[in-house]
């Protein structure tokens, strides 16, 4: 449901017809009303990377303020330290009832769902936390949620359905959303510029889709059950595109960017492909999407599960527990999975981890620069969830590298390192998501994920340590 003030703002933007980049226009409407609306505009961004981290992730002490210091890998977060909370001794054990070695794909597939990903027939995979949020708040924006990623490799999938490794967002147990890796596709998704806009296009498109729909519908009675199901899928898709065309007039004309010149696909990258540039373009696009309030829910896969992408654009930093320094002579980094399997203290692996954190920082600093009204920034109103599906070379689903940036509108405690090691089984990842859903996004869920065995109670408890009271 769109509030009148929203309509006014969008009308204004459309009338202006030019690049307007502010989701919050101070000049429009009574300040108090807009202030309230702005504070209600919370975002969830999940930025994930695979294969866990090397030894240099965990801060050595816990607490708030000067009681804890950033670890060598987290060092790029220094300018944001007061907006960061690092969580240690959190595990995604609940789907498996404790430790098993469930493979890269299983862990990644279950990272945002906390449900076992490879049960027979895949029947017990579930909805991911970002999609629960999108279902609750997605209708407020033209795009309920956005999934992007950087993997240009046809990555290894552990012999499991590829979606486990390549999709962290799940709309339903059988609906992996995958992600867009092509910057142009992301831009087009945001601004729907794939076809030249002409005044009569929408009506013409709609008349075509009506015919397509009618034909396929007429075919259905002559088909057997399973083929009818396939046609159903087709009809639903056609109808959704038709509805989207009808809704296009509502998209604000907020275009402060131009369509990227770069186009990448899986197994399709130009000579001289630069992963760092790819990441930066994607970060800019995600920023644009959030800035223009085109969506409030984003998942960003920095790489796919078990990626062995060769990060040769990075030169090794030499890590010790005290910090890291660039290698005096350039030392290109090799494949991520190979490094993550070559001992937990290798600097090559840590260098890739460090780069992941740099990309997180880049995104967060951009969000911090956007005024969201009432003295607040988009970062203040966001939870930027950052982490990996496994601890590290041990393939363990416990003591995951996890942190969040942003308090979600002053709902979450920030500026801390919290270690749940003193609890008998640490903390359950499902409880973290349960807390996000209930305490940041005010979605009254009774549980999240499916815990089994002694973990049957996972995903049902608020974690008081991270909630602002």
């Amino acid at each position, binding site marked *: 449901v769109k509030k009148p003030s929203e309509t006014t703002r969008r009308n204004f933007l459309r009338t202006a017809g030019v690049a307007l980049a502010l989701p919050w226009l101070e000049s429009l409407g009574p300040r108090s009303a807009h202030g309230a609306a702005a504070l209600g505009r919370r975002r969830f961004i999940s930025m994930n990377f695979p294969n866990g981290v090397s030894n240099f992730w965990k801060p050595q002490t816990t607490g708030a303020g000067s009681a804890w210091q950033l670890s060598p890998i987290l060092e790029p977060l220094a300018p944001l330290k007061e907006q960061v909370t690092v969580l240690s001794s959190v595990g995604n054990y609940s789907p498996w009832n404790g430790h098993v070695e469930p493979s890269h794909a299983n862990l990644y597939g279950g990272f945002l769902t906390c449900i076992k990903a490879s049960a027979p027939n895949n029947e017990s*995979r579930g909805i991911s936390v970002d999609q629960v949020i999108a279902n609750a708040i997605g209708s407020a924006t033209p795009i309920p949620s956005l999934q992007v990623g950087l993997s240009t490799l046809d990555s290894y999938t552990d012999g499991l*359905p590829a979606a486990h490794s390549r999709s962290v967002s799940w709309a339903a147990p059988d609906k992996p959303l995958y992600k867009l890796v092509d910057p142009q596709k992301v831009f087009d998704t945001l601004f729907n510029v794939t076809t030249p806009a002409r005044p009569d296009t929408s009506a013409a498109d709609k008349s075509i889709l009506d015919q397509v729909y009618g034909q396929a519908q007429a075919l259905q009675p002559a088909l057997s059950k399973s083929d009818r199901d396939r046609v159903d899928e087709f009809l639903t898709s056609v109808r959704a595109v038709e509805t989207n065309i009808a809704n296009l007039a509502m998209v604000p004309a907020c275009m402060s960017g131009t369509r990227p010149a770069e186009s990448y696909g899986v197994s399709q990258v130009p000579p001289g492909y630069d992963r760092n540039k790819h990441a930066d373009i994607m970060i800019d696009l995600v920023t644009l999407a959030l800035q223009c309030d085109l969506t409030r829910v984003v998942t960003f896969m920095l790489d796919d599960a078990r990626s062995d992408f060769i990060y040769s654009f990075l030169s090794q930093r030499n890590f010790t527990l005290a910090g890291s320094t660039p290698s005096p002579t350039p030392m290109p980094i090799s494949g991520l999975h190979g490094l993550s399997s070559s001992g937990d203290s290798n600097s090559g692996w840590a260098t890739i981890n460090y780069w992941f954190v740099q990309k997180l920082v880049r995104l967060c600093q951009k969000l911090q620069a956007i005024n969201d009204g009432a003295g607040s920034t988009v970062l203040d109103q966001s939870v930027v969830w950052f982490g990996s599906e496994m601890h590290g070379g041990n393939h363990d689903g416990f003591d995951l590298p996890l942190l969040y940036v942003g308090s979600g509108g002053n709902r979450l405690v920030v500026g801390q390192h919290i270690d749940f090691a003193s609890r008998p089984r640490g903390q359950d990842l499902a409880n973290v998501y349960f807390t996000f859903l209930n305490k940041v996004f005010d979605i009254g869920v009774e549980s999240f994920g499916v815990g089994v065995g002694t973990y049957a109670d996972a995903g049902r408890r608020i974690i008081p340590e991270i909630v602002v009271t």
Partner: protein
Amino acid sequence: MDAPGSDADSAAPDGASPDGAPDEGVASDAGDPGRVLLHRLNRVEYDNTAKDLLGLATTPATQFIDDISAETPSGAFDNAAEGLHMSPERYQQYFDAAKSMVESVWSDNALKARIVTCAPDTTDKCARDIITAFGLRAWRRPLTDAEVTSLATFAGSAQKDTGDFQVAMKRVVTLMLSSLPFLYKVEMDPQPGSLAPHRLSGYELATRLSYLLWSTMPDSRLLAFGDELQQDDVLAGELDRMLDDARSDAFVHAFAGQWLGGRALAIHAVDPAAYPAWSEGLRAAMTQELYLFFTGLLDRPFDGFLTTDAHYVNDVLGAYYGLANPPAPGKFYSVDLPGGHRGFLGLGGFLTVTSPPARTSPSTRGNWVMTHLLCTPHADHGGMNPALGPGSSPRVALNLTVAAADCTSCHKLFDGVGFGLESYDGIGQFRSSYSPAALVDATGSLDDGTTFNGATELAAALGRDPRLATCAVRNTFSYALGRVLAADDDARVASVRDAWAKGTFRSLLHTIVLGDAFRMRRGEKP
């Protein structure tokens, strides 16, 4: 064989039970052709089809969302109907591509003239002619009168709205390119609730054949046969014609590309620091060699799959394999390689694609062979990867790790195969030692206890294993039908394997294409 145009009601199909209606639950009955789901074109098929239909050089589907879906069973080919779902995001891409391709066609008079073959008069005859002719190619079957009328009415109304015949034609072509009969391979069951097998129409069969061999729409010759294509001699003749046409590269690339690792090789990560001999030129040559090797097998007995000396080598590979007189740059030549590199297991491409970037992994190679060549896959957890360096034997470290982590029950079933290939490093170069102190030990064993020493003995052992031929048939059968095989397909696969008797891949394709599963279908219980 039946005369063309005869239908299943009047003639029992070959191999069907006498009454032509298998009982339910007798799915393994060789007379039951099984079912293929309504089948969306995959990305390669879409691009090839759009290119052949419209004459454009664009490949819009390369930018589409991956065809792979969560429902795609592991190891399924990318043309398996089960995995080819539709979603709003996918349909948006199809719709956008249709509009954009139509704009491109209409901006090129020569291409436009292939579709707009007449000028309008006061009747809708020209529109109907265009729709009828384009429809036959776009929907890969003649349109019904009702369909032509409905599309002509749509075009007429668009012309009335815009006053522009060209705009009307653009819209109707966009409509046809956005329609289910273009985007899917549609096969109809006259009685959707009946399990009685019936023949595919000639157009449906032409579509199956064409997407099998060319990954694209049927050409005009194939469509012209109509139901005559169901005649054995016509079907066999067309199969050979199409296989001998250069467009059958699409089959080799899609089938061998997936089954034998060609596609994975093209993007496989190799660490240049570990292998200074590695280059992109070598990768390209190895990939091409793998495809040429498979193409050679089309007319060579399957017994040579693991043993033949015939390899296809260009100058880059000549140096790589250590030929005394490498061929001149450019072309590939069929040569007998010096010792060791025999058959498929001797291909540099195979040995590379089954290795991690900087070393060999007997587990990965072994499980790859078990999965791809013997159809006996084992759960792959992606590797604990004991600390291994290029200078040490993986056998010792692997055995220690496997024993310590209690993983032997699985690893003993496939590591042994990989040990037999340890004489080749991570890019397939022969070696007799890892370092001066660590000699290669290439003794290994199959999961049935057969022992061997080195690649040649391994190849001989695999050649004696009945699973090898069954697995080749299983993969070819699955790709040809474009569906995932289920337990009740075992009997169909066995029957094809026995009829084929380890002939050539060409004869295997003949056995499959002329068999019931390829030429027939049935409904299913409501």
